[in-house]
């Protein structure tokens, strides 16, 4: 077995990191670490269950945890999240219960969306986490409308539009950035560039030097950030959110990161990824980078790691147990919610 690749160290002293992490930096780091472990545990477990045929589909977000945790922690309850494909963790960090999310993954009767959408497509209105489709980019325009709502009701809040590198080629990336810029609406465009749109590498997605550079064409600031560095993610997101809350122009943040698993449980990346990709991704594992740095700075020890891991194992195990004991949605779920009230009898029912 090959040795573990060297993890790229986070380039901070403890004081430098604490300076950007706000009033309770140690607590923030521990909370972030805890969420990253939970997410990692859930991804591994669900991919295994998918292979066993116990859930129909799964799309892991392994490698994207730093951005998701930082967004979840840096945003406020009144902010809105318009997710792309891999932001389920943002909903959890913002307070959506893990067991509800696992019910959704099992598409059972306790799934808040009643099993209508594929796994990994949750809705969590109580934390302003909007339902996602599988269509790429459409949510970017939705965020503009949410921003317009905030403006018209004079609410100091921000709509966060998440999307991947592939979505920067979509119609609604262009439409959304343009409309938000013209209206100067409180929208933060969060691009998680994991460098792959299924099999298409980002250099085949665009001839632009960076994705962040595209923002300039709309008259907006665009900044590329190391998306595998929790401290950098936190600094970029909390800074942008603060500027937007104070009436600043919309901005785009591009988080460069590494997709550490297949696109989804239906994908085989050995068909298209170069042989050294996995090693490069591992060197930029956001969890390993954070853990290494926290250990070096005396913020993490074996006891805490074990405690966090057992807590995550138990929470995931309990949620899966509950979901597997829950029946499928009732048949009525097929025909309800097409309209507020049935407009006419549904043919065939």
């Amino acid at each position: 077995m090959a040795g573990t690749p060297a993890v790229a160290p986070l380039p901070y002293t403890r004081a430098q990191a604490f300076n950007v992490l706000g009033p309770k930096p140690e607590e923030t780091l521990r909370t972030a670490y805890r969420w990253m472990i939970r997410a990692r545990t859930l991804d591994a477990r669900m991919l295994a269950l998918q292979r066993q045929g116990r859930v129909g589909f799964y799309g892991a977000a392994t490698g994207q945890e730093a951005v998701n945790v930082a967004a979840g922690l840096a945003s406020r309850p009144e902010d809105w999240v318009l997710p792309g494909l891999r932001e389920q963790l943002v909903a959890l960090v913002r307070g959506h219960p893990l067991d509800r999310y696992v019910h959704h993954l099992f598409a059972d009767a306790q799934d808040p969306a009643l099993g209508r959408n594929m796994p990994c497509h949750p809705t969590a209105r109580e934390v302003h986490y909007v339902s996602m489709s599988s269509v790429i980019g459409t949510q970017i325009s939705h965020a503009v409308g949410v921003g317009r709502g905030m403006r018209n009701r004079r609410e100091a809040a921000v709509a966060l539009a998440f999307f991947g590198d592939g979505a920067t080629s979509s119609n609604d990336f262009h439409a959304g950035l343009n409309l938000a810029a013209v209206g100067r609406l409180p929208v933060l465009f969060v691009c998680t560039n994991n460098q792959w749109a299924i099999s298409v590498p980002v250099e085949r997605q665009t001839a632009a030097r960076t994705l962040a550079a595209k923002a300039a064409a709309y008259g907006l600031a665009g900044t590329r950030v190391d998306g595998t560095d929790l401290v950098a993610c936190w600094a970029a997101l909390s800074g942008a959110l603060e500027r937007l809350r104070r009436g600043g122009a919309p901005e785009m943040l591009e988080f460069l990161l590494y997709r550490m698993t297949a696109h989804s449980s239906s994908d085989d990346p050995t068909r298209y990824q170069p042989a050294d990709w996995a090693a490069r991704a591992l060197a930029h594992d956001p969890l390993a980078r954070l853990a290494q740095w926290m250990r070096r700075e005396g913020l993490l020890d074996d006891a805490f790691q074990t405690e966090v891991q057992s807590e995550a194992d138990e929470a995931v195990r309990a949620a899966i147990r509950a979901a597997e004991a829950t029946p499928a949605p009732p048949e009525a779920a097929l025909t309800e919610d097409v309209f507020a009230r049935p407009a006419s009898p549904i043919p065939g029912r």
Partner: protein
Amino acid sequence: MSELTLVQAVNRGLAEAMRADPDVLVLGEDVGVNGGVFRATDGLLKEFGADRVLDTPLSETGIVGSAIGMALYGLKPVAEIQFLDFIYPAFDQIVSELAKMRYRSGGQYPCHVVVRAPYGGGIKGGLYHSQSTEAYFCHTAGLKVVVPSTPADAKGLLLSAIADEDPVIFLEPKRIYRSVTGEVPEGATRVPFGQARSVRSGTDVSLFAYGAMIPVVTEAATALEAEGISAEVLDLRTLVPLDEEAVLRSVGRTGRAVVVHEAARFCGFGAELSALLAEKAFYSLKAPIARVTGYDTPFPYALENVYLPSVERVVAAARETVRAS
């Protein structure tokens, strides 16, 4: 009551809805300073200001996509697509997002957006200012599809659309925007969805139509009367939800049906209506169902009068059904 054109009635409906509810807003291309290319939004910017009357960049997907976001947040947007022919960049937003949001979120995110679009031929608009593609939207579960034909219905159905909890595609017959005038009630008099309007009653044949075909079909009924054929005219008004009961009741009385629309025939709304009659009124039928529709061609410029169903074509089809039995 005041005597208004159809487009004035739309304008009146928008203004009254905006006065009644600060969450109602309009957006689209040229809807603000210019008051809309057909003047449907004339005067709204002056009265309601630039936060509620949004002149948007030229992007239909952005117009409908941002309207969806506004509705998710709790506003009640009325988006204008300048011509139905230009709606396709927004088709993804309408079909994939707007129509499915309530369903896929388990009812957590209703999405009450009204999308207004002038539709139809007869204005010498050629390929891309003339089409009637209502069937695309009727085919998509989760959308309501409304087509008024009179000023009173334009306002009353629009007020219902804005008050509705579901997304509504509101198609305005631009050919009769100004050629038709009528009395329009003041105030919030809504016309409910799912109720066809009987334009005239008859005993020999039922003529089913909507939108800009209503004046054509009504004139055809008058011509048929001169030939001794008593034709009933039913204005469907809302295609989804469809007033099935009124359609079936009418054919139960007359035993003959002619379905008229400007849209192309193949898989047009008339196909659905014909199937409904074949399934549920088969034993009432005395003659084959007839369809008078646009042709299965792109919409032509020079020959639009050939393409569009005419009084003569409707009369000939109705006469045929009466002769058949």
